[in-house]
């Protein structure tokens, strides 16, 4: 991979830091009047999602990280790995539980997710922003109470638990925003 110097650090650039791939969030130019110029850089470690701050001398460089985002279809899990397929090449990738991470309770077979590949292997998985999933378990629906506010927990087939309006029942399919975990509506 190419090396990037501090003056090429831009938000979104993927670089290697202490052996881990990181994404640059911010790069601030710092220079004491009579002193050496620095770059104060905020980065997100793509493995742990932790945000760190590092100071580099102007002109220092970091190696680029072989990190690529790719849309892939979720196929299935065998309990150990989660399998994704590139829609164009049909090439399959297996992701570990830690790579799937927070996407786990939202994964429905055939949904298209954004998979971040690092050196060719899945590093993290982003579910679609909106998913449609069936309710597997909730208190019985209260018909005729649709005008009244109020909500109850509902467990979805994928494992997520979402707050839904009282009138919904087991077997209903709902639309959820995966970024907030909020109910968006019932799908007819």
């Amino acid at each position: 991979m190419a090396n990037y110097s501090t003056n090429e650090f831009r938000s979104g650039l993927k670089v290697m830091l202490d052996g881990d791939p990181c994404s640059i969030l911010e790069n601030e130019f710092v220079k004491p009047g009579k002193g050496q110029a620095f770059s104060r850089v905020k980065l997100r470690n793509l493995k742990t999602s932790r945000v760190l701050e590092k100071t580099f001398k102007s002109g220092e460089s970091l190696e680029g990280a072989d990190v690529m985002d790719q849309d892939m279809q979720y196929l299935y899990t065998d309990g150990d790995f989660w399998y994704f397929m590139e829609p164009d090449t049909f090439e399959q990738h297996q992701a570990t539980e830690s790579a799937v991470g927070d996407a786990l309770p939202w994964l429905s077979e055939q949904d298209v997710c954004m998979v971040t590949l690092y050196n060719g292997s899945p590093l993290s998985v982003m579910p679609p922003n909106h998913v449609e999933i069936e309710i597997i378990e909730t208190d019985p629906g209260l018909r005729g109470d649709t005008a009244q506010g109020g909500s109850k927990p509902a467990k979805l087939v994928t494992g997520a638990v979402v707050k839904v309006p009282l009138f919904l029942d087991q077997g209903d399919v709902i639309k959820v925003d995966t970024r907030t975990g909020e109910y968006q509506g019932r799908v007819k």
Partner: protein
Amino acid sequence: MDKWQPGASLNTLRHRAAMLSSVREFFKQRSVLEVDVPVMGKATVTDLNIDSITTSAVGEQGYLQTSPEYFMKRLLASGIGDIYFMGKAFRDGEVGLKHNPEFTILEWYRCGWDDHQLMSELAELISLLLAEEVGISRDITKMSYSDCFSDSVGFDPHSAELRNLQSLAAKLSSQSWINETRANCLDLIFSSQVEPHLPCGITIIYDYPECQAALAQISVNSAGQNVSKRFEAFVNGVEIANGYLELTDACEQRERFKHDRKARELLSKTVVPVDQKFLNALNSGIPACAGVAVGLDRLLMGALGVNSIDQVLTFSWLRC
């Protein structure tokens, strides 16, 4: 950026104009003479970390001045007395939230004063210029570099061993700092550990480390350590001024130039010629004096509570 509009609002530009006229009034009342020295010269500073913008005129190489210091000191040598300059200065490679390659500098010299007298006058001026805004703190804190450093970091910067500074710098950034110079390690530690904790309002820090003397005299502090008679002012943690009890010894000055040039050569930076006319002026004798330079754009940022220099300039480099 394709925008043609200025970065500063019309209201900010009115504040800017008011600030410039307050400065002129301040010095008029104190009988300090305004001088309008060149911003383009045939020589420039040798500072390791300050890069000049080159230009040319009538077939000769020139440099946009990074501060009016050398020209002003030549005037001091000619016996002019107390003087100030308010105008543009230029530094290459400096662009960011708090930097623009062209900026407005206010620099003045007081003959026969020491650094502490000038710090008082500086605090008075900054306080006056901040006063035009409501809700901006004008509390003044004055402390030595050693005190504020050891308060935040836990050890004395002057007596600390180089390898301890290097390992702290490496811990704060990366292993590549393990062989850095004393001055660079101190700057890194100061900017990341001390500056963010400086009190609100105006903070003046004096007696900088000997290795960061630039054009200041070296002296001995109450703990018997060598320090430079250099000071800086911060407004809400942002560096806005740098001053010295000025070095007046031409031989010592020549040595420092030589040292700078060697350091630039080692880092493969452009080696600039030494300003011989400035050295000749020092040789002929300049009065004992203290001098200070203020970044007026940053002071205006502090007065208005804005965090980007683009918001106080008509057209920052991004918009030129």
